[in-house]
């Protein structure tokens, strides 16, 4: 019987991280952005396979990397939220709890399995003025190894993060109107591509958590609606 080669834990982790990072960097970027009426999610996505999704009344999801893997995470999030809301109350479903659950699930796969998940996700929760102590927005990012961080203002995942983030760091202002924030979102995504031409409404996926809506605050904007905003 032959003995397996010894590989140090550091080396295993570094290899897995390298593998996951490569997979994620191949994709396109997604930007989450706070605006005056809520939170905007904007992704470069010309396909009909959606990267942004509704989780619950005030919570939305964005995922980059391998579609089958992050879409599975999105569905897990919907199951988690609906079960919790059914067992307790709708107000008890919170973005932080979900982000933590993601962090643990993704982190578990990273340490236990040979192949890590090639995904990175954002969980956003829009603030509610009617709900004392919950007026502020939350943005959480979970990386392929389960690393979790919270952000204020904006957050970028996938693709060419540094370039996209550079634009936002220079030009993001608090409480921008929706139209302006969509323009800024597109401009930052343009920077992540080769930068030669602006992305069209057909190649953008845009969703909102609109704090002025009653109940479920998630809305998906059609290409026409996005075009209207870009032209205005």
């Amino acid at each position, binding site marked *: 019987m032959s003995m397996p080669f010894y590989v140090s834990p550091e080396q295993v982790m570094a290899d897995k991280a390298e593998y996951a990072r490569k997979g994620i960097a191949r994709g396109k970027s997604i930007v989450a952005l706070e605006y005056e009426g809520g939170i905007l999610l904007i992704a470069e996505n010309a396909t009909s396979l*959606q990267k942004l*999704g*509704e*989780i619950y009344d005030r919570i939305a999801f964005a995922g980059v990397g391998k579609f089958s893997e992050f879409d599975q995470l999105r*569905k*897990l999030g*919907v*199951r*988690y939220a*609906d*079960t919790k*809301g*059914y*067992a307790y109350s709708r107000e008890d479903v919170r973005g932080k709890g979900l982000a933590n*659950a993601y962090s*643990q*699930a993704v982190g578990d796969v990273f340490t236990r399995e040979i192949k890590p998940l090639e995904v990175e996700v954002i969980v956003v929760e829009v603030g509610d003025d009617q709900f004392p102590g919950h007026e502020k927005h939350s943005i959480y990012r979970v990386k392929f190894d389960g690393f979790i961080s919270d952000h204020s203002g904006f957050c970028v995942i996938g693709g060419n993060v540094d370039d996209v983030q550079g634009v936002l760091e220079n030009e993001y202002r608090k409480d921008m109107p929706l139209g302006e924030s969509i323009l800024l979102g597109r401009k930052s995504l343009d920077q992540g591509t080769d930068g030669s031409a602006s992305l069209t409404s057909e190649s953008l996926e845009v969703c909102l958590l609109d704090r002025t809506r009653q109940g*479920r605050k998630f809305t998906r904007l059609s290409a026409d609606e996005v075009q209207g905003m870009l032209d205005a």
Partner: protein
Amino acid sequence: MIFNGSYRGSSFWEMLQVDASHLLPDFTALAGDGSVQIPHGTTVLAFKYNDGVLVAGDRLATEGHRVASRDVQKVFATDKYSLMAISGAAGPCIEMARILSVELEHYEKIEGERLEIEGKANKLSQMIRQNLPAAMQGLVVVPLFAGYDLRRRTGRIWKFDITGGRYEETDFEATGSGGLYAHESLKKTWRSDLSKSEALRAAVGALADASDEDRATGGIDLTRRIFPIVKFCSEQGMEDGSNEEMESAYLKILERRANGNGGARA
């Protein structure tokens, strides 16, 4: 919990059965020999009008001869384009309406599109069928389900039996202890081209007739200002009937009765 679950489909109800059965309501242990009194709901009705469908219900729940609640809700919006109205054992009925609304929202989020109205009615029928053991012990759930069909551009109505049997109604239907009287009332007042305000008057008339003949139906309580729940469902979504309009329709009925046109008078 759910993150370790094995269910991979798009139904909330099935997911609970597979991964969280402790959350599923199970009423089969409660023997219905009359020794345990639980609240019952009474009269609900649904009919089509010009723009879609109207669903209404009185507010009274009874435990035997006792009033359990004067302002219970028996008509529920299960999503933007569908409604469920309940009569029978209130606890299981309300729980079923709650699960159905989570079910419809869950499916929409997982799949990225809404179920067709026919699919929603079919799902409800499966849920009623699974309640059959409890129904055999007296915990009967026989709802009305109605909604707007965005493809056929019309309102649609279904009634159910305790086995989950699903029967589509073409015009109007009423169930519950006062359902028969409401049904007969609608037979006289319903037309295929009712406007919205005519529809509201017909609904108030039917509930007033039901509460006049059936002691377990609440009708309109002008003293406490408790009005029936009336919901309109059309292409534009859901809308509540106005209490002021219901009041004026009801006052006209009372006036007719006071003038001796409504049966026995001292």
